[in-house]
């Protein structure tokens, strides 16, 4: 007995929405074909964009959907990267296995960090995560851990070669192969985020964000959901970190400074807080715009980046995803 309401569900608003298969298919096709039209370097950059997108999506699950702030996601990115690098470098683990493993280690770390952080609301949580973000690079450099982490020098690792039948039949390059791996992982992570958001769990997460007291009164165990969401968010960021370590074939403490946290935060806001696919645009933005600013003027690159950022916020106050939604509504109204 489908009522009127049940049949005209607006995917933009309603939890439990139908996935927009047309758009997803288009996105998958473009994403899969792209590396065959791009230069090797552009393909590599595309891989990094997707890695950032995964991390941004993780941050968005925490902040955009659950209302918890984090300025320390660079720490989880670093933990994911170092987990992968250490397992490959010291223990000779198969590289592919270290990617989910980096995520799982981060899940545990995030969940445990989330437990005491439950007592901290809003700005205080931002400060606590900030402390995490600034301390992890120093810990990685510390002489006590040097044997494991390689200290300031970091660790060099090598990613496995492209399976030979793909080289023989399709002439797949290393960059294209790792682009494809990142692409598949990103799609999988997006699928999970979509499932989570459009479910009982997602509703609970958003209820806590909008009104924690009412959420608890409706029977939502806010502590449990908040710490699990912290863990899942760290899981995403850890997967991204592990992928980054392998793709770049190198980890060093200075790649994971507090600035990376801010960059991920910017990517989230620019992509659209509370949007899943906006993370891709966020990743694109934080990879390309700082480079672009650098090209215009090396000395004033941050000033230029800042100006671009302000312009972007002015044009799209609710992020890229918000702008697209707005345009979609306009177009709908016209016809």
């Amino acid at each position, binding site marked *: 007995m489908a*009522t009127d*309401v*049940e049949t*005209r*569900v*607006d995917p933009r*608003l*309603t*939890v*439990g929405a139908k996935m927009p298969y047309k758009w997803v298919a288009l996105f998958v096709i473009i994403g899969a074909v792209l590396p065959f039209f791009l230069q090797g370097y552009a393909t590599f950059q595309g891989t990094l964009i997707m890695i950032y997108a995964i991390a941004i999506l993780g941050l968005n699950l925490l902040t955009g959907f659950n209302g918890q702030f984090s300025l320390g996601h660079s720490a989880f990115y670093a933990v994911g990267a170092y987990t992968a690098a250490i397992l490959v470098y010291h223990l000779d683990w198969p590289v592919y296995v270290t990617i989910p493993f980096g995520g799982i280690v981060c899940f545990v770390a995030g969940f445990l960090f989330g437990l005491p952080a439950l007592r901290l609301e809003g700005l205080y949580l931002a400060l606590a995560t900030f402390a995490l973000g600034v301390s992890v690079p120093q810990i990685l450099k510390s002489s006590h851990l040097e044997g494991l982490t390689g200290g300031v020098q970091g660790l060099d690792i090598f990613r496995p070669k492209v399976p030979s039948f793909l080289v023989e039949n399709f002439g797949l390059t290393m960059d294209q192969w790792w682009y494809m791996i990142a692409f598949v992982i990103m799609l999988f992570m997006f699928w*999970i985020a979509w*499932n*989570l958001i459009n*479910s*009982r*769990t*997602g*509703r*609970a997460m*958003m*209820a806590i*964000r*909008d*009104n924690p*007291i*009412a*959420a*608890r*009164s*409706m*029977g*939502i*165990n*806010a502590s449990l*959901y908040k710490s*699990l969401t912290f863990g*899942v968010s760290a899981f995403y960021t850890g997967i991204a970190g592990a992928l980054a370590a392998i793709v770049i074939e190198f980890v060093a403490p200075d790649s994971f400074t507090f600035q990376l946290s801010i960059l991920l935060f910017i990517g989230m806001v620019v992509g659209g807080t*509370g949007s899943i696919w906006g993370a891709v645009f966020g990743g694109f933005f934080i990879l390309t715009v700082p480079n672009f600013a650098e090209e215009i003027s090396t000395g004033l690159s941050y000033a230029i980046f800042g100006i671009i950022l302000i312009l972007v916020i002015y044009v799209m106050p609710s992020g890229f995803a918000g702008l697209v939604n707005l345009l979609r509504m306009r177009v709908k109204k016209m016809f």
Partner: protein
Amino acid sequence: MNKNTDSIASADVQATDTLLSVKDVSVHFGGIVALDGVSFDIPSGQIVGLIGPNGAGKTTLFNCISRLYDVNGGDILFRGQSILKSPVHQMSSIGIGRTFQNLALFTNLTVLDNIMIGGHSKGKSDYLSNALHLPWIKREERELRREALEILRFMELENTALQRIGDLPFGVQKRLEIARALLSHPKLLLMDEPAGGLNHNELSLLVNTIRRIRDEFGTTVLLVEHHMGLVMEVSEKVVALSFGRKLAEGPPSAIQQHPDVIEAYLGTGKK
């Protein structure tokens, strides 16, 4: 076996059963005494009004019953069991639902989502099965959605289902507060000033709604309200508080005549 005796007992004394008893409850914030040894019973199946001038401790008592505040003394029994050890998020599954005085809806979500969150405690799907979208959760989700739409229809609000909460007028949001609380089918519904800010038409609709909630859902209602007309019209029993103490309890007509209540509301002087 246990279950058997339970149901016999409840069938026997259903009419005069006490659903909730507040026993000698005291609350103080620092040096300020908000509640001072308040006791009363809420009989099962009745509509009970809780009245008192501003600052009498009505909302404090409410927040104690829904476990948002801890009591400093006394006990609160629901179906004979103390609830003071249970956390806030278990109240809904125990059978105590509530609405909020100042709207506490989830403003960025649709009406339908808000109502479905009201049924959270009935759901079983966990974080992992939701993340992987396992087949069995679809059924639960469909069932919850159906019930949410049913409640919306009961409240005559089904046409708002897909609107965003923030886009709706105040009076509608007030009704949605009630709808959200109903989805968990509470045995006791705590309504915190449901009439606040409503116009004349909305008020008469509210009287009707409260009665229908009791009659059709079998829900016992505890009503905190400033609007005397509403309380007297709809309640079968009224408890009056003033400065954290119970002044009187009884049927509305008796409370209206009670000298202490009149004095608390009008200062000294006669009617």
